[in-house]
């Protein structure tokens, strides 16, 4: 009885454990790396605005507001997928969205916004990608939810999906705005 349990039971238990680990692994996105930014102050920067080259944008200007920082670029394919959702959000006035045009050409970025609609409250132009590095950006588009005190509360890697918007981002914005 005991020997039989060992002979069949142990491989069965090991298989079940392995299968469970692999099953959980399949549901996860390997690109979603836990961000070290959650709960930390949004890194300060000062960049030229995309539309007004002479003027600058810095996160300081958003103090006292809950806002989104959306990192995008005209060369970024998945940004196209996400963009209509951002336009919709700006029409509903959910939250001010600041665009960070990452490693782009000014002309291409501007043309993109004219064609696809401009959902941004303000657009900063990060031509060298230095601010992107300070925000740990590695998969454009990325979106940060920043609270009234300038602390990063959430980070979306890759396009905002309708599901993530409804279940995570909008409830969080409501909570932070209250």
């Amino acid at each position, binding site marked *: 009885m005991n*020997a039989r349990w*060992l002979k069949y039971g*142990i491989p069965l238990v090991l298989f079940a454990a392995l299968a469970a680990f692999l099953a959980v692994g399949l549901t996860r996105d*390997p*690109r979603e*790396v*836990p*961000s*070290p930014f959650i709960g930390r102050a949004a890194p300060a920067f000062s960049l030229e605005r995309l539309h007004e080259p002479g003027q600058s944008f810095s996160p300081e200007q958003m103090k006292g507001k809950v806002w989104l920082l959306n990192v995008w670029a005209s060369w970024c394919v998945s940004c196209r997928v996400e963009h209509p959702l951002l336009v919709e959000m700006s029409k509903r006035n959910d939250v001010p969205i600041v665009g960070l045009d990452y*490693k782009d050409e000014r002309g291409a970025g501007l043309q993109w916004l004219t064609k696809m609609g401009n959902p941004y409250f303000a657009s900063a132009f990060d031509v060298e*990608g230095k601010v992107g*590095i*300070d*925000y*740990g950006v*590695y*998969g454009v588009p990325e979106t940060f939810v920043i609270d009234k005190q300038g602390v990063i509360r959430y980070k979306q890697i890759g396009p905002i999906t309708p599901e993530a918007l409804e279940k995570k981002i909008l409830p969080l914005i409501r909570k932070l705005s209250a």
Partner: protein
Amino acid sequence: MKRSRAGIMRILAALACAVALNVFAQADEVAHPDPVVEARLKDLGEELRCLVCQNQTIADSHAPLAVDLRNQIRVMVRQGRTDDEIRAYMVERYGDFVLYKPPLKATTVLLWIGPFALLALGIAIVVMIARRKRMPQALPEVSAARREEIAALLEERAGKAARR
């Protein structure tokens, strides 16, 4: 025979070109590469993960982000920052995930001891099975009559051997 040797030479030449091009591509990122900076960049870059193509190091990857990060490391090396400071800079932005040798913390304990725990479990199972095999099997019951019969047979055999 001669032909195949020429073929091999051609392949080797192609490989040499590929290697040379690769080296060239990395050094080409800066106008005047400083060998000391490049050496430290190489050492550091090999223990940092590129987050765009996650199974490559920052030293290996051709992703634009890896190029930017290599340039950032060059700047920091020239500023005289230590390896630890540069590593901290990366972890601050990308988390422990960038390190191919993550620190031992509560969240990484499983990563560090997991393989050894599995190995120990495997050894324990093998030892258990081996012991079980070595253990003497219980002897079957033999009746007195049968015993005598066996003794007689053994004696007979011994007698035969002696006669030979």
